[in-house]
């Protein structure tokens, strides 16, 4: 097993799927000769050529729309939107068509496409390059939303996403791309879409997070254990939609307390749905209000202030302590 960054792991997932299945085609801006602005497709143009690693003109609606046509034909397009903040130009193609084609055709036509996009802050980027708005897609019936938290699960989930018969939005935390390395097996590895993972078991409260927020959440859990002798059960959602309610409810039924952490704005964000479901399914077990630790209801500020916007371990731990003490 090689130690890989998330960029390398994603690159391996794409390469291996392309080697196995010539229906897998990549398209997007600068993914070819340039290898992608984050290098996720590095080397694939050289290996598979311009027919399968397709540099596109500068138009997101067309990138998504062309992927839909390819997918209906029977290919498995994986398109890259250079930054998730520019996916909205293709919003109507995703909502009007990618999410509906199977339904509209009564099962005749399928759209097995993946839309990859880097999301989130923390890399000192310019405006529109640091957004987290995964809730838009999660609220769109017909789409699935996957957000990995590290190299190994990113690779396994991307393979699963490519093989999934339905359209998948695959958000990659920029801050994770090169943040750390993990052992990633050369052999095929997949992960089930729609299943969360308990990454740390505990008894006193449940901490729920995903993507780039998992690590600060784990740091907060460590802090609680060390300073307060409190053990937190930490859940990594991995898939935001469909949501793995079962695992969340099972954990909270044990701990009676929950903190949800995400980088996206708080209001009408993913945390609200998670909190609502826990409240619905575990109401009589809950011992304290569920805490949401999230980005503020603001546009993420330019990078000199972004660290104060993005939840950090201290903010998360403080919220956990509030839950524990109420």
């Amino acid at each position: 097993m090689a130690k890989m960054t998330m960029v390398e792991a994603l690159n391996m997932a794409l390469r291996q799927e392309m080697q196995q299945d010539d229906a897998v085609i990549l398209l997007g801006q600068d993914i070819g000769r340039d290898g992608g602005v984050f290098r996720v497709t590095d080397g694939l143009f050289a290996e598979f050529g311009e027919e399968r690693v397709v540099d596109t003109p500068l138009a997101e609606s067309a990138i998504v729309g062309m992927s839909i046509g390819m997918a209906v034909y029977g290919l498995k397009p994986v398109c890259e939107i250079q930054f998730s903040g520019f996916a909205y130009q293709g919003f109507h193609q995703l909502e009007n068509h990618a999410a509906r084609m199977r339904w509209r055709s009564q099962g005749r036509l399928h759209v097995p496409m993946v839309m990859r996009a880097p999301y989130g802050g923390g890399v000192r980027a310019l405006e529109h390059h640091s957004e987290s708005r995964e809730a838009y897609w999660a609220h769109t019936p017909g789409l699935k939303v996957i957000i990995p938290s590290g190299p190994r699960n990113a690779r396994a989930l991307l393979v699963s996403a490519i093989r999934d018969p339905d359209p998948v939005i695959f958000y990659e935390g920029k801050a994770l791309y090169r943040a750390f390395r993990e052992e990633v097996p050369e052999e095929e590895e997949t992960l089930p879409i729609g299943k969360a993972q308990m990454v740390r078991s505990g008894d006193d409260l449940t901490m729920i997070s995903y993507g780039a927020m998992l690590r600060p959440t784990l740091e907060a859990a460590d802090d609680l254990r060390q300073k307060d002798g409190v053990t937190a059960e930490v859940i990594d959602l991995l898939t935001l939609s469909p949501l793995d309610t079962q695992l969340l409810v099972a954990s909270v039924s044990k701990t009676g307390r929950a903190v949800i952490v995400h980088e996206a704005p708080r209001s009408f964000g993913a945390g609200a749905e998670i909190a609502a479901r826990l409240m619905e399914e575990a109401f009589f077990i809950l011992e304290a209000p569920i805490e949401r630790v999230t980005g503020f209801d603001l546009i993420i500020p330019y990078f000199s202030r972004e660290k104060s916007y993005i939840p950090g371990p201290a903010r998360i731990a403080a919220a956990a302590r509030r839950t524990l003490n109420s």
Partner: protein
Amino acid sequence: MGRKYLDPEIGVELLSILDEYGNLDAELEPQIGNDLHLKMYRAMLVGRRFDERMLDLQRQGRIGTFPPIKGQEAAQIGSVAALRDRDWLAPSFRETAAEIMRGRSLESILLYYNGYNEGTIIPDNQHDMPMSVPVSSQIIHAVGLGFAAKYRRTDEVVMTFFGDGGTSEGDFHEGLNFAAVYQTPVVFVCQNNQWAISIPLARQTRSRTIAQKALAYGMPGIQVDGNDILAVHLAAAEAVARARGGGGPTLLECVTYRIMMHTTADDPKKYRSEEDVERWKARDPLIRYRKYLVEKNILTTHRLSELDEEVEKEIRSAIDRAEEQMRYLGQPLDMFDHLYAELPAELRAQKEALARELDSGIGAKGGANHG
């Protein structure tokens, strides 16, 4: 060094073979076999009569809102007649005649306009896309289909339809640009029927023709008399041949007219004059074609009246079959089918909740709501 301005007034000639007075340009007259002539005429006739019948049904509350196609039969039939079965059609919402020619059943159309999702089912052996309501959004799907057909080394061609109003959407621009860059085998057919609901072409764009928009993409463009099926078919056949031969995409503008209201919910009197409509009625593509077929002895007047009867019967029985199906279609629980290959847990729970509701009789308030 030096200077020269582009002349923005550049226009395109109209390709016309059989004009509204029945004059024929023998040199350009395409050699079309009688079978195809018959097939095209029949499809135009079905398209016309079915459209008229649907209007009655809508007025009687037997179907919902729909967009009539009267007057645009030649633009549709002449174009798709150039396709092979294995080719693809990516229609918008006003290609009823084209869809029928391609094999869509009249029942499915009636079911669709009566609010049944079952009305969009496309026969398995058919390559076409379901109609697309968001204006011009289907254009880009055609490019993707064409890219895939080329990638798979087939000689399949994709034809997509849109209206004059559709040329204003960003998707029109992005789609044609992608098609030209990748030289995908796509024929872009604009049914320029002069109106986008209440907006006339002159307030939709300042370009003198729609065909000239092809210049922006380094793509051939041609404008034809859309009520002249010979001209439409010739231009479409050339564009399809170019695409099939690896020559890339073409923009085909069919100049026609929306004789009826935009949809049955629309009242054209609010925004256009009757004279204009009358002038265009005189250019009726069906009558023009019929005259040609008779003069050429391809169809006898006797055969024509037989066809009228056949088509009447065909439509009547389709309506019967559709209304028969509506008695058992439309079960509420079916709405959970086909969103995903597999129903996620949360949706399964929602489906069960609806099932319980229906059993408990609460569902009574729900259920199909015809009429």
